[in-house]
């Protein structure tokens, strides 16, 4: 296990900067061609993730889901909101997944609805990761009373149970639509990432390359974002997919409870209407099965991608002998 080959760009640069006398030269090479260097790192990182079979499955699955929602206008057979078909019929050749109680085509709703669900997952994942990075890195680097205070706030957000908090905020801000849903997901989702990124920052800040940068007179801001940040990219990506996964699940849950904008078509609201219109009693299994399965597949794809991303950051978790 200890002699496993360090195969990623980020790992190499972390070790090179820290222990290797070649470190400074590596950094100048990067400085000369920042774009090429960045592309090279991304390419290497992507290849490492791609080499893990589970992550490859996740990437392909995610790509399929994203593409199917992007091409919804061309792929979907009907207008998702037009209720001009016979209501509550089961799967048939015209309607592969049947119709809703309002006579809308379920397959078209599924394709269009994915747009909202995927978008909310990605945006909330991105926003909570941004906050987690800002808070986690500065909190881990600064050792002062301000750090203690930030720590207190983060811990407070960690212990306040998130689903009840989300539901209560969504209830107070009624009918706020997508932005409220994203807001509550981000508000309850940033704290965990901050804690993880903070402990990694703390362990990196005592490394030689950080000390060297501090001695050469770099500002704290520069050290945090030019020295520490690049070495944590894999953890940050990991955090993004984790946050987006829980964002997808939270969004579906909130909309299922009717706390989103129930007039938009998304996987969560499809399930909300399915339950409200007693689909269980009319026996339309396809309408019940499909939207939840899509949410599950979206969450699964990102969980599986993280198996590959884990490999970037934790050599001990590397699969097999690769």
């Amino acid at each position: 296990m200890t002699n496993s080959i360090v195969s990623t760009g980020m790992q190499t640069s972390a070790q090179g900067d820290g222990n290797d006398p070649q470190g400074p030269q590596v950094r100048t090479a990067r400085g000369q061609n920042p774009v090429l260097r960045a592309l090279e790192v991304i390419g290497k990182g992507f290849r490492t993730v791609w080499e893990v079979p589970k992550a490859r499955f996740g990437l392909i699955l995610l790509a399929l889901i994203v593409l199917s929602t992007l091409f919804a206008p061309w792929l979907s057979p009907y207008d998702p909101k037009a209720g001009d078909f016979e209501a509550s019929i089961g799967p048939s050749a015209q309607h592969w997944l049947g119709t809703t109680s309002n006579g809308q085509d379920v397959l078209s709703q599924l394709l269009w609805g994915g747009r909202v669900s995927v978008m909310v997952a990605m945006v909330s994942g991105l926003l909570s990761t941004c906050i987690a990075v800002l808070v986690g890195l500065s909190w881990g680097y600064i050792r002062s009373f301000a750090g203690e205070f930030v720590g207190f706030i983060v811990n407070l957000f960690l212990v306040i149970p998130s689903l009840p908090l989300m539901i209560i905020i969504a209830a107070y801000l009624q009918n706020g639509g997508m932005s409220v849903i994203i807001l509550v997901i981000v508000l309850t989702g940033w704290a965990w990432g901050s804690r993880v990124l903070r402990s990694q920052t703390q362990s990196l800040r005592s490394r030689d390359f950080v000390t060297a940068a501090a001695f050469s007179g770099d500002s704290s801001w520069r050290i945090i974002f030019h020295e520490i940040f690049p070495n944590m990219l894999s953890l940050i990506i990991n955090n993004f997919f984790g946050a987006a996964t829980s964002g997808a699940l939270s969004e579906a849950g909130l909309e299922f409870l009717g706390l989103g904008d129930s007039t938009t078509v998304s996987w969560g609201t499809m399930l909300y209407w399915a339950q409200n219109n007693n689909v269980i009693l009319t026996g339309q299994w396809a309408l019940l099965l499909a939207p939840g399965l899509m949410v599950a597949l979206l969450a699964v794809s990102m969980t599986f991608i993280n198996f590959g991303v884990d490999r970037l950051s934790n050599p001990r978790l590397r699969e097999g002998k690769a």
Partner: protein
Amino acid sequence: MKGRHVRYFFGKIGLFFVTLWAAITVNFILPRMMPGSPADAAIAKLSQNGPVTPEVRASIEAQLGMPKGNLLSQYWQYLGDVVHLNFGVSYSNFPQNVSDLVGAALPWTLTLVGLVTIISFIIGTALGALMAWKRGTAVDVTGTISSSFLSAFPSFWLALMLLFFLGYKAGIFPTSGAYSSTAIPNFSMDFISDAVEHSILPALTILLTSLGSYVMGMRNTMINTLGDDYVTFAEANGLRQRTVMLKYAARNALLPNLTSFGLVLGGVVGGSLLVEQVFNYPGVGLLLYQAVTNQDYPLMQAIFLMITISVLVANFIVDILYGVLDPRTRR
């Protein structure tokens, strides 16, 4: 050395009280930050049945215990109410007390969600340890893939699926509530078996959706401990495989998993809102859902406070236990 330990525990106790105060304060500020007032919401509901006179409005505000005075005196009043567990009257179940409603829902949630959480933790941890030990084999791969799938399932969707296929299609299990509508809650064998039958589908849902995180958590920490020197040393000393697995690797990997278990156990009080909603199970989660849909602010506030405090207490106990079990954290 000893002074350091005392400082660790006192630090934890101090932090607990400061966090408790902050959580109680958040619960005070949250509704006051939001647009609209509870009385307006209640009056809006009433006005659907006809015009509301100023007298009616005044009496509603008096009945609902509308905040009077400036923010500071309201806050003082609120703190007093919290200490005396006086959460006022529910809007939606008028004139029942909030405390009585919560008290009626709590036993259902505690038995169902509490028991399932403990079972899930035990099964999940055992499976995770086994998978880490047999790393790379078929057991590990199947376990990893299926637990990732299970934890990606939206819990309410799995609940709907089980309800549809096992409840309605196959008709094996009852489809709603915690007991038959004709039964009267008591401690007879008949009633208990009826309640157990009603709890199987919700229990199965909660078990399946919560298992994955314990399995993966235990597997990943144990893979890390298996790489540690003391485990290699134990193996090199020729200890039995079972001993190495259970007494060296699993025992040390258990600690971080215990932390998340403690937090989840604290959250049990909040019930499993989505699952309880699907099965119409009369627990705290369903009560909170009903409070939210009826804009029953006193009930909402009380349940939220109760959940937060119990998570805090659980967190505190885990912190203290951690300090006792793992001396390294006391540094």
